[in-house]
């Protein structure tokens, strides 16, 4: 009890000291914890085991005897000096009616921070540190006496990334995951396997053949992986809270090609932090639960349930009422497994602190002595009897392949794989002979048998051929994956592949294209490309490109030699050549273009490829097409010109002799064509066109004007500088001055800074925003210093300074001098805080009086710019972590420190980089990825800033994008309110995470000179309308105060977006529709009335008449219409 009190004291920093007792939601009594956990009606949650049997359970898995193996890591996450390794694997069995495991036995102990575990092959596989081990009991004592290193070389840099989430696949292979910071170079009998980053590995345990199964979709913290009944695998990630379909990735050796990393989204659920994933089935659960996904959300103390819907191409997961909701704050469900008995077993890490890197390993709040295993059962139906799989004839084992419980089918395959393979094969054959074609599960049973054959490595051509042609598309898709595994042992694998690639069902085609990547023969690609004859979705497009690249060594040589013809199918040839981008393919591409066989939609891609890979003579043909625009739409022509401009800048496309033909395009009626031509003229440095180009600066059309400035900047030299200077002063209109000065910054920084200070000393006129000017200075080397110098002489107007501060926040550029200067000019200067132990103590002591609601108001202040980078419930910036659940993982001291010293601890995945280029540019952002070719950053404005490695002069890694000094303008009370607000986020209560679909990301119409009255509904359609982001509060309510204040009239307009993934009827329900007029895509809408929506994006507009409406807020929920198949969500983000 003394220890409990001590822990509590530390947690609440004295807050609860005054009250002197443990709050019930932190009580260590299992029965108390159980009473705080809520399950659906008709269900009950039972305690299976607790400490000291189970401590810090990290993974649970059943074996064929129905025993539950639990990986326990009391030392997690780090063994400290002086400590001996004492982590262990314990087996629980013989569960009584109340769920309690009557027997437990430690199978292995003395482990050092193991992170993944799976029973099998007479013992247990364990992932620990750098190695995968197998422990075995060869003497029948019930405890392992043999320890073998199976593979070594896995990364150890982060124990929450080391080998985890072990799972047997239906194919008999063992799958496990590694996370983002894991730098693995694994020694295998088939050669080294390297992967620096997150992935799912696939291991054939009988020969230790290790390959990457997936590395394409969610790269890190993927702590859940489950196969559905048809072998499709799904992953649940704690980052960024998504459930995804796995698109099995390529073999390793080609995997460094960044062009092939797809940006695909199959489903996106919300801001949950998933850990553990199970797909449930079987007789114990209700019919409408079959195939549901269960995931643990360790932040919100819940186990979520989703319904999985499959439209043949992609899956959508629909949130349902959670399986478990806990008010107890140490409940951390991190692994979920359904037992063969049908009950849902949950590993509860039982921790107050789950953060890994932000909290000291010695923090006394970390738990090293407790852990819980729970199970959820139906009270109105008995559990399914545990199947007999061990100690019975194989003929009985094979019958379990038809069991309704997925886990039982899986364990039956395991038993077969571990039996004598010849005997297993004959048992399977006998069983297959007895299957009844009229059985509703006939096709699934045959698929199970096919997998069982794969598990014993026994090729059954006849069964494969039958399943490939099954009536059930799921079976065809799954069998296609087996085809890839057996291809070198089949008589006619390519013919089978070609048939699957033209299957009417898109997922079968996808599997066929992926399968082709495993067949190292020239004919595999043409077979896969049959998929082009049918519609190609983004998954298939990615897979086709990947396969073409993977197979390049086998088909391209043959193609050039004329031995491989693709049967004259130019669509296939074009696609394949585009995919591999081989320079010597240019003549082939020219041939395709000139014969008109490339197809209209493809021709710009073909031309751009010729431009990128060809010699000057070949490029001349592209130039001809670009300047005449023959056969191209305006958009295509502009794209082609822009493509040439990029190459011209990289000096890969020299100006042709007749380059001055560009001049005629300057006055092209299509602004996009004219703008592209102006830029290209500059990139080619066409002096002869200088004067014509300069005239366009005064053009009324903003894109043309901007393009002219860009062109002049590219032309460079004193002439450009003086032209721009001439446009930089009054009486030129503000917009032109702004454009000219911004352009000038790249040519003459000091001069531009002086002119900028004059411009900024004026308050920006309505509709004008000098953000770009600030950004230009911040993005060039020495730019910020020059600007500070000029602004010190001529200070900016308060409004101009405020815009500058916003830019600083949004770009995340650390420029303390400029920040201070702008703070002063804007009149928001504050004082700097020292953060020593004394100050932390003093501020945290104020927490009990702090008000989270006031804190939310502080968070929402535009001057702080929190939403620029952070989202709440998905709505807001994506540059910093979504803060929805932060309160459940972060302690107040950490939150305080993060606000005051943003760079001290950086959340993983938010590594920042500042990159200086050879051309004097500076880019600051989150490091997305880096390859020998390029580095990719993300900043608050742009998702992918691609910087070629060749252009990089210097790079600095580290630090936060969050500016220092955000707290300066806050009083102590406001600061503590803010901390209190953050610490409540995600906890049960008014700031909790909710599954209600409520609109959180809005935009409000700003008054502007071109749109005289915001009440005009026309504003919705007018592209000149200016909209400003607006976010709902955590509760989902949108305050309208800001909308009302920004108006001179009594009417305001806000809008939001809805994405529909499956069409159907939905309803938009407003809490209080008084004084609101609603439109959906321009058509009037009634609150709560069903409305049919097609797939895609839809815009909701709300007109608020403040003369009628007294409620200064609104709230809009997306409601399901009974019987409707619709799947929709509000668009979030920034």
């Amino acid at each position, binding site marked *: 009890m003394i220890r409990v009190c001590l822990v509590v004291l530390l947690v609440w920093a004295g807050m609860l000291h005054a009250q002197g007792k443990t709050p019930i939601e932190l009580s260590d009594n299992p029965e108390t914890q159980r009473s705080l956990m809520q399950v659906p009606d008709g269900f009950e949650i039972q305690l299976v085991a607790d400490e000291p049997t189970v401590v810090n359970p990290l993974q649970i898995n059943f074996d064929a005897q129905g025993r539950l193996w639990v990986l326990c890591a009391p030392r997690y996450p780090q063994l400290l000096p002086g400590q001996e390794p004492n982590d262990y694997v314990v087996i629980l069995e013989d569960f009584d009616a109340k769920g309690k495991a009557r027997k437990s036995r430690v199978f292995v102990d003395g482990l050092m921070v193991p992170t993944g575990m799976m029973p099998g092959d007479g013992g247990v596989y364990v992932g620990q540190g750098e190695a995968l081990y197998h422990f075995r009991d060869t003497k029948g004592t019930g405890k392992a006496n043999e320890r*073998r290193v199976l593979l070594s070389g896995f990364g150890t*840099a982060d*124990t929450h990334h080391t080998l985890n989430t072990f799972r047997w696949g239906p194919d008999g292979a063992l799958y496990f995951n590694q996370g983002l910071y894991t730098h693995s*170079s694994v020694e295998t009998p088939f050669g080294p396997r390297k992967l620096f980053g997150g992935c799912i590995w696939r291991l054939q345990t009988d020969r230790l053949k290790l390959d990457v199964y997936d590395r394409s979709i969610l790269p890190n913290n993927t702590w859940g992986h489950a196969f559905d009944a048809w072998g499709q695998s799904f992953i649940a990630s704690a980052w960024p809270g998504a459930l995804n379909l796995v698109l099995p990735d390529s073999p390793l050796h080609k995997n460094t090609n960044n062009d092939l990393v797809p940006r695909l989204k199959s489903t996106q659920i919300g801001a949950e932090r998933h850990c553990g994933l199970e797909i449930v089935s079987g007789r114990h659960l209700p019919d409408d639960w079959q195939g549901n996904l269960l995931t643990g959300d360790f932040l919100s103390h819940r186990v979520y349930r989703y319904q999985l819907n499959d439209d043949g191409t992609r899956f959508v997961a629909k949130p349902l009422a959670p399986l478990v909701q806990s008010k107890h704050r140490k409940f951390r469900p991190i692994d979920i497994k359904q037992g063969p008995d049908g009950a849902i077993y949950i590993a509860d890490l039982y921790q107050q602190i789950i953060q890994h890197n932000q909290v000291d390993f010695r923090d006394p709040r970390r738990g090293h002595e407790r852990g819980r295993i729970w199970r959820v059962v139906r009270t109105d139906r008995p559990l399914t009897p545990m199947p007999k799989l061990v100690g019975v004839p194989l003929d009985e084992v094979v019958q379990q392949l038809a069991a309704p419980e997925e886990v039982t089918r899986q364990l039956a395959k395991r038993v077969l794989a571990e039996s004598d393979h010849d005997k297993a094969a004959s048992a399977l054959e006998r069983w297959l002979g007895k299957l009844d074609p009229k059985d509703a599960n006939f096709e699934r049973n045959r698929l199970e048998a096919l997998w069982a054959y794969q598990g014993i490595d026994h090729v059954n051509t006849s069964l494969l051929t039958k399943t490939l042609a099954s009536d059930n598309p799921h079976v065809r898709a799954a069998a296609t994956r087996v085809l890839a595994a057996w291809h070198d042992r089949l008589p006619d694998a390519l013919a089978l592949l070609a048939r699957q690639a033209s299957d009417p069902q898109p997922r079968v085609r996808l599997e066929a294209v992926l399968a082709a990547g495993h067949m190292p023969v020239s004919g595999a690609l043409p077979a896969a490309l049959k998929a082009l004859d049918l519609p190609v979705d983004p998954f298939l497009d990615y897979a086709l490109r990947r396969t073409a690249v993977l197979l390049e060594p086998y088909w391209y040589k043959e193609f050039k030699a004329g031995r491989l013809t693709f049967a004259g199918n130019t669509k296939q040839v074009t696609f394949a050549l585009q995919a591999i981008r081989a320079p010597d393919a240019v003549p082939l591409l020219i041939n395709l273009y000139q014969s008109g066989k490339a197809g209209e939609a493809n021709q710009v891609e073909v031309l751009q490829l010729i431009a990128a890979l060809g010699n000057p003579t070949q490029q001349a043909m592209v130039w001809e097409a670009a300047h005449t625009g023959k056969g191209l739409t305006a958009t295509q022509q502009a794209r082609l010109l822009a493509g040439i401009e990029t190459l011209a800048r990289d000096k890969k496309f020299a100006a042709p002799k007749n380059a001055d033909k560009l001049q005629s395009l300057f006055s092209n009626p299509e602004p996009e064509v004219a703008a592209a031509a102006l830029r290209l003229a500059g990139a080619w440095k066409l002096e002869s066109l200088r004067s014509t180009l300069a005239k366009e600066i005064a053009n009324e059309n903003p894109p043309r004007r901007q393009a002219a400035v860009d062109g002049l900047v590219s032309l460079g030299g004193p002439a450009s500088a003086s032209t721009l200077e001439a446009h930089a002063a009054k009486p030129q209109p503000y917009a032109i001055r702004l454009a000219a000065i911004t352009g000038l910054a790249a040519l003459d920084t000091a001069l531009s800074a002086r002119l900028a200070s004059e411009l900024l000393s004026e308050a920006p006129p309505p509709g004008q925003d000098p953000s770009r000017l600030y950004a230009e200075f911040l993005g060039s080397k020495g730019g910020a210093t020059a600007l500070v110098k000029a602004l010190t002489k001529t200070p900016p107007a308060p409004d101009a300074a405020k815009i500058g501060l916003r830019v600083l926040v949004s770009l995340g550029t650390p420029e303390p001098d400029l920040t201070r200067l702008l703070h002063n000019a804007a009149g928001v200067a504050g004082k700097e805080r020292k953060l020593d132990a004394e100050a932390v103590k003093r501020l945290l002591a104020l927490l009990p009086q702090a008000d989270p609601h006031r804190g939310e108001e502080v968070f929402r202040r535009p001057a702080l710019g929190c939403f620029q980078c952070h989202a709440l419930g998905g709505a807001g910036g994506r540059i910093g972590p979504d803060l929805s659940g932060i309160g459940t993982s972060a302690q107040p001291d950490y939150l305080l420190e993060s606000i005051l010293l943003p760079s001290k601890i950086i959340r993983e995945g938010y590594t920042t980089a500042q990159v200086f280029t050879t051309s004097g540019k500076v880019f600051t952002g989150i490091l997305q990825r880096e390859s020998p070719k390029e580095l990719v950053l993300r900043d608050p404005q742009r998702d992918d800033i691609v910087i070629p490695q060749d252009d990089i002069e210097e790079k600095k890694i580290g630090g936060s994008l969050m500016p220092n000094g955000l707290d300066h303008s806050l009083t102590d009370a406001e600061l503590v309110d803010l901390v209190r607000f953050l610490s409540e986020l995600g906890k049960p209560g008014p700031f909790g995470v909710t599954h209600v679909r409520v609109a959180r990301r809005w935009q409000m119409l700003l008054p502007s000179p071109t749109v005289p009255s915001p009440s005009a509904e026309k504003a919705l359609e007018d592209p000149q309308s200016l909209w400003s982001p607006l976010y709902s509060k955590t509760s989902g309510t949108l305050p309208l105060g800001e909308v009302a204040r920004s108006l001179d009239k009594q009417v305001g307009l806000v809008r939001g977006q809805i994405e529909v993934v499956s069409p159907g009827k939905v309803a938009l329900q407003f809490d209080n529709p008084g004084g609101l007029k609603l439109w959906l895509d321009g058509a009037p809408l009634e609150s709560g009335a069903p409305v049919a929506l097609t797939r895609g994006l839809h815009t909701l507009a709300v007109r608020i008449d403040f003369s009628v409406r007294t409620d200064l807020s609104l709230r809009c929920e997306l409601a399901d219409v009974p019987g409707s198949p619709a799947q929709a969500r509000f668009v979030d983000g920034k």
Partner: protein
Amino acid sequence: MLTRIGTYLLAIALAVPSPCVCDELRLKDGDRVVLLGNGFIGGEREFGFLEARLTRHQPKANVVFRNLGWPGDTILGLARTPGFQNPTGLDRLLKEVRELQPTVLIIGYGLNESFDGPDGLPRFRKEYDALLAKLAPLNARTVLLSPPPQEDLGKPWPDPREHNQHVEQYTEAIADLARDRKLLFVDVFRPMVEAKRTNASRRFTTNGIQLQRDGYVELARIIERSLVGKSLPEQIAIDAKGTVAPADVCTLENVELSAKGLKFHLRENIWPVPGDVRKMQVTGLKPGKYALAIDGRDVGSFTETALAAGISLDAGAMPLRAGEELCSAIVRKNDFFYRRWRPYNDHSRHWGFIGGDFQLWEKQVAEQEKVIAGLRFPRPYAVNVLLEERKP
């Protein structure tokens, strides 16, 4: 199967007669031995056989061993991850080797590279030479090891014949490098192939390339034989008069001869270590059943003829037990060093919290070195060979 054995025989036939192209490596007081390489080196830390074998010839010398083997590593240090204040790859490798100030370097690279086949050879040779050039200023006595062969485990494991031809080519390349740079070289490949040929029931690896206990026993033996040349007598012969052979490696003390047999203390110059076998022969005893006890532990009862033929001692009996204890102490030290050198969670962001732990781990390593030093030096043990009481 016959053809596979045939290939091995061919390899043996073509092999250089002596596996050693080197001078002796004699460890001396103050030596700091650094083991560097991939998993083949790294895995040794769990056994300690190599340290035990190389130090037993000068048991009083103060010598430390540090294992910097990193599974999956290549000659460019590619597997070495960036961690707290640690640079990446080769820079990290060099920094860590230099910090340990080695006087002896034992390097084992090439197994991972050998999977690149002959195409990778020129690059391997060049990169290995560059690494040696970078390490040369340390003036450490340097030993280059060849990679071990891939063990043939039958189906469904990969057939290693082709790969082993490549390993052999890499072995030659490493031998050439050693010759050019006048370094010591130990061929591990051919003696291991030979050992497997001699006794096919031995299993060196868990998966063909990952050495397990017997593999590391053999590796340490090969290296010791190659660098020290001396081997331990497999049998110690004592006669009932209290003389011992071979007299150059062991002596008898406190000999008590009686009608019931004899008691004595045996002092050995060199301790056996795991992998060694030991027979004790006692000759000249009068007929009868004798109880043999070593260091207070009953070994068994034997007739005078059995004793004259020699009794094979098991690992639980002295002096083999002392070798096991020594190796366990080395493994414990290796564990402490591993935790300090390559701790989990060494991603930079975690280090603010465990940076101070370095000193604590170093202290543990230093204390364990003292334990090892105490176990390294042979101590005499009591042997009783006494007639059993005849039961009525």
